[in-house]
């Protein structure tokens, strides 16, 4: 798995719903580098409520989950390119692949965790993984169930 920068401190944040979110921290002059380092790190915790990234990731997961069981074509537009491509390769088209995977209706939002460009959203009946692209949050994996040791088992995921 690609090891990549986990979170942008400004304004893309890390957080779970209900924890605190800090103000913007920008790259500082050399004299304040240490203060920036510590401050940026300390402010990396952020909240779900009112935090735009957490809210946006949660909304993207909810939207996908609500349309996937009935409108595969729209749901495909909410997938990350590599995830959509994986479905296409397996079934000839993304929509067909998505229908074959029979994603569950996830239900209500329970928890959102955002770390920079990556998010995990727990719904009542599903867990959805997302990544933030230029056009917004896209679903990288859905239909996921936890396993005792190891990663989630996901019916829909990228290669």
């Amino acid at each position: 798995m690609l090891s990549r920068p986990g979170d942008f401190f400004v304004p893309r944040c890390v957080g779970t719903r209900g924890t605190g979110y800090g103000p913007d921290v920008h790259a500082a002059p050399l004299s304040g580098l240490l203060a920036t380092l510590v401050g940026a790190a300390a402010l990396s915790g952020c909240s779900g409520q009112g935090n735009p990234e957490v809210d946006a990731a949660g909304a993207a997961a909810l939207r996908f989950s609500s349309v996937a069981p009935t409108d595969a074509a729209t749901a495909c537009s909410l997938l990350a390119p590599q995830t959509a491509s994986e479905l296409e390769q397996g079934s000839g088209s993304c929509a067909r692949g998505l229908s074959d995977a029979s994603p569950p209706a996830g239900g209500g939002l329970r928890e959102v965790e955002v770390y920079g460009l990556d998010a995990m959203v727990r719904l009542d009946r599903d867990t959805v993984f997302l990544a933030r692209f230029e056009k917004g949050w896209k679903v990288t994996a859905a239909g996921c169930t936890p396993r005792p040791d190891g990663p989630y088992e996901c019916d829909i995921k990228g290669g």
Partner: protein
Amino acid sequence: MKRLRDHGLSLAFTTLLLAALVGQALTGRADYNEQALGAGLPQMDLGQYVTSSQFTVDVAENWQSEYLQFLLYILLTVWLVQKGSPESKPLDKVGRETDEEQKVGAYAMDDSPAWAKASGWRRSLLSRSLGLTMGLIFLLSWLAQFIAGRSAFNADQIQGLEAPVGWGEYLASPDFWNRTFQNWQSEFLAVGSMVVLSIYLRERGSPESKPVGQPHTSTGVEG
């Protein structure tokens, strides 16, 4: 020009620090984008990269180890000596030394710092200010490594379709301690090497070395 010369060391190291940070940011971002491209993930611009937890943790883990190195060096050399090393003080001066040797209180000079002439907490604080400051910067850098490290680690967890970890779990994680120890060991090696190699080797004109003709057995003599 004289001003530049008088502050040459600090200016040179500040310049080197900036250049190295720029180099780290450029190459780190390029490395990331290379991998992101292969994995079908979004790429980042430079501003995004330098404010990412991955860049922060990489910077902080090196900083904390450097400050720990100097903190230990400052403190251990009060109590430990090394025969023949210019990095050590003379063998008979182990400890905090007398007020006369340290030029404090009644033995302070006219141009000594004001707090060296003072008594009580001010003199005590000045007497330990270098170690305290290095120690504080070390702790803050280590804290930054811990916080940013967890963020970066959790991003990886999510990419691998695994659940993020909490603070306690990350504190006990191999990722945090491996980042820490891999930096510590190199710092301890560098300091230990300097202490021992400077017994037998010389660098003409450097205050970190003995004078070239100084015997190997001379301790606490700098060039």
